[in-house]
């Protein structure tokens, strides 16, 4: 049983560009959450998707958007990249009937 997978593992972009990160949830999970982890910090909640809709959102600007597909996989899009967007982006999946979120290995984004 595959766990949460994310792609790509690493990415380098320049300021102003746009990026799309992808996540496939653990089998049997229907909810996907995205987090940003800056260097030396704990993960910060970006948003959560359930039933193909954004259910909750943290304190992130509209440049951060997402999508969930019918197979429960999800994308995180970031427009107009800033240097401060450089971070490890973590995807976590969970089931709507249990509390634990399981994390993928993350995508490390570097904005130059």
């Amino acid at each position: 049983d595959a766990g949460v997978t994310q792609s790509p593992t690493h990415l380098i972009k320049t300021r102003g560009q746009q990026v799309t990160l992808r996540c496939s949830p653990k089998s049997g999970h229907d909810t996907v959450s995205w987090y940003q982890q800056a260097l030396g910090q704990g993960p910060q909640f970006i948003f959560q998707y359930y039933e193909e809709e954004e259910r909750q959102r943290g304190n992130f600007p509209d440049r951060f958007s997402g999508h969930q597909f019918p197979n429960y996989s999800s994308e995180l899009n970031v427009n107009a990249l800033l240097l401060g967007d450089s971070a490890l982006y973590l995807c976590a999946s969970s089931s709507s009937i249990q509390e634990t979120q399981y994390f993928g290995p993350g995508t490390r984004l570097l904005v130059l």
Partner: protein
Amino acid sequence: AQSVAQPEDQVNVAEGNPLTVKCTYSVSGNPYLFWYVQYPNRGLQFLLKYITGDNLVKGSYGFEAEFNKSQTSFHLKKPSALVSDSALYFCAVRDTIRRDDKIIFGKGTRLHILP
């Protein structure tokens, strides 16, 4: 709003000694509490959780945590530390009062087990 505090940036323990990593929390309602571990250049691995019931919860790799409602704490413990336990540990909380699924993480505590 919910919050989590991990007062120690780093904890050093000799191999074979007991270890404790501290965590306190603040929520409006009853908390769901979690501990995760992160190894270098990796995602977070789930260790254990408290939802309800027995205040002492046991998790993976011999770790356990004690929920203390009066002190709003959820300290992570292990009776005998291994060098392989060296990693970054995160405490996290979810507030149940609004069925809010958002999980708030502490800033992390780096655990060094000295051989």
